[in-house]
């Protein structure tokens, strides 16, 4: 009898030990702005990470290991990003880092990530051009958003384009893309104005736009202060079709602003929660509906599921596929596995990693905001590649690089 107890004790101890060894989790570090200026667009992202992890763990994880999130609130503050990136790497010893909303916060942690050879997923729409051996990008880039949007707008409304853009990297580089595409398509820029992030009053800008009489107004504005432009242009009766790559798909301005502030605004997104409401059947309808059903089951109070939430969800799944393929969480092995062109069939269809630039391909939806702020989708472009960096000379499969490039300052070949 005693013997039996002892042996069962030993067995259970052994099992405990064994299970402990195999249950060593894969640690995913997440740095997102739960508070501060960007919180509006970021909270759905955080939930999407959590949802992806829950789903994967429910299926038993990967390589027999569960995923575990280590998350810090970076408070929309670049210095917090730096502090916590180091904390994740040096203290929590995570296997991969996801996160950052603004480009500045991404750039704040990239030196730390590169030095530690950490694997990092940036899951946000941005100005493009990051060619970094350790960085993967699941958000949309200008060649995906503007190469589709701008020619379409010019065809529909006319060839005179006016750009107002936030006066920092995103706005300036995006404006450069718009300028180039307008020229390539035989249009003219009738005006271009850059506006500091702190400006919230736009009377003068509105008058300048009216003086130039454009057919299309590109509004590459960022942040809550600049978003006041929309109410002010509506109050002044500007009535010029607007196009952008940022609004609606991130901070769901069409839900937050009083109609008709965003009337006749066009946006290219790689996902928004309305996809399955607007597109009544087919692949996109089914995938989006399924995703939203699962999302709302977990987070019924979520105000909006934006494109960055989809990107965050895709990022975790892509990473896990990379780990599965590599058979390890070794950072170099996972990177090489991801560079084989891994793809994931997500909320808006297949996202495939471009091996050269580490960016993802996307299906792009053209969204129009109607007078009552209901959303229409006049067009979908399928499988748009992040082609620019690869063409410009970034090939991370052959040569490591740690830079960000722009169309006017491409990689030196």
């Amino acid at each position, binding site marked *: 009898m005693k013997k039996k107890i002892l042996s069962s004790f030993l067995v259970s101890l052994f099992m405990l030990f064994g299970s402990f060894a195999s249950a060593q989790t894969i640690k995913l570090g997440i740095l997102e702005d739960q*508070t501060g*200026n960007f*919180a*509006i667009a970021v*909270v759905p992202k955080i939930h999407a990470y959590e949802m992806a992890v829950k789903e994967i763990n429910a299926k038993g994880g990967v390589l027999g290991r569960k995923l575990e999130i280590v998350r810090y609130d970076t408070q929309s503050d670049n210095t917090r990003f730096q502090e916590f990136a180091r904390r994740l790497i040096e203290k929590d010893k995570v296997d991969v880092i996801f996160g950052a909303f603004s480009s500045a916060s991404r750039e704040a942690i990239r030196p730390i990530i590169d030095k530690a050879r950490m694997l990092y997923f940036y899951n946000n729409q941005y100005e493009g051009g990051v060619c970094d051996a350790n960085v993967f990008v699941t958000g949309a880039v200008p060649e995906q958003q503007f190469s589709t949007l701008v020619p379409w707008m010019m065809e529909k409304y006319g060839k005179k384009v006016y750009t107002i853009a936030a*006066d920092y990297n995103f706005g300036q580089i995006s404006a450069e893309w718009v300028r180039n595409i307008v020229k390539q398509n035989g249009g003219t820029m009738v005006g271009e*104005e*850059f*506006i*500091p992030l*702190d*400006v*919230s*009053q736009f*009377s*003068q*800008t509105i*008058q*300048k736009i*009216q*003086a130039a*009489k454009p057919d299309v107004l590109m509004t590459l504005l960022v942040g*809550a*202060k600049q*978003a*006041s432009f929309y*109410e*002010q242009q*509506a*109050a*002044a*009766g*500007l009535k010029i079709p607007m196009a952008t790559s940022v609004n609606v798909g991130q*901070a769901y301005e069409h*839900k*937050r*602003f*009083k109609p008709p*502030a965003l009337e006749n605004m066009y946006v290219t997104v790689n996902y928004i929660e309305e996809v399955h409401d607007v597109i009544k059947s087919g692949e996109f309808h089914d995938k989006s509906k399924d995703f939203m059903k699962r999302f709302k089951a977990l987070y019924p109070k979520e*105000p909006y599921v934006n494109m960055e939430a989809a990107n965050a969800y895709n990022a975790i799944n892509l990473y896990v596929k990379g780990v599965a393929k590599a058979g390890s969480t070794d950072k170099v092995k996972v990177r090489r596995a991801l560079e084989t062109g891994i793809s994931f069939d997500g909320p808006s269809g297949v996202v495939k990693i471009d091996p050269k630039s580490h960016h993802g391909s996307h299906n792009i939806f053209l969204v129009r905001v109607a007078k009552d702020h209901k959303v229409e989708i006049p067009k979908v472009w399928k499988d748009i590649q992040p082609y620019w960096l690869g063409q410009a000379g970034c090939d991370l499969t052959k040569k490591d690089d740690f830079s960000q490039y722009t169309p006017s300052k491409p990689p030196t070949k």
Partner: protein
Amino acid sequence: MIILFNLFYQFGDALSFLLLAAIGLAVIFGMMKIINLAHGEFITIGAYGTVVSAKILKLPLPIAMAVGVLVTVIFGYILERIIIRHLYGRPLDSVVATWGISLIVSQSFLVIFGPSFEGLQTPLSNFQLGAYSYSQYRLLLILISISILILLYILFLKSNFGTLARATIENPKIASTLGVKVDKVYTVTFCIGSALAGLTGAIYAPTMTIVPSIGQAFIVSAFVTVVTAGASPFIGLIPAASFLSLIQTSVTFYYHATIGVLALLFSVILIIRFLPKGFSGLLIKLKK
């Protein structure tokens, strides 16, 4: 003609923004030498008070605005009683305390109301003049800002309360020996400053995105205007705001907004360099 009106509108719009941004701060800083870093949050309270009472209590806009102002005054009153009154005579320490208050308020708004709140529509309509169209409400703002300033001028320079307030500000100890209840004068003055900040928030609420950081859009303009106005803000505020908005609008007109902002900041540096006591100092000198 249209161009002239256009310039007037642009200038007036910039002017009223500077005036309204600065006015509450001008009272609190100019009269009490408290550097209120929470000024932006007072504006936020006014804006949220207005929007919440218009959206949830379904009050008509003017009444909702009054509620916004009232809420800000109550907040200002409580704050003055429990914290600010211990900071009189320590203007530089007030920086730290009011910064703390600003953190508490803006973050509390985020916790309570979430990152964003559906805004209001700008009241009134717009009108067309040649190629340009204008918002009537913004035209009204110009009038409102100037009339508030005139009322304030009367209150502080012509009324009995104004005499008490100016005496208290100049020399609280002596005012007290003459029977003035210095505490009360401070409280009332602080409440007036709060009310004006709240009013700014209420007035601009229908034209801006309603987020917990809404008030921060005003704060740099406010400080810059108050300081160039100088030690006696009621005299200096209009010339300072006019000068600064003239610089900003004309530079923005010829170049673009970034250069406009840089020009504004640069002219502040130069104004203070050559008029160390601001515009009011210059005016007082000229009068003599």
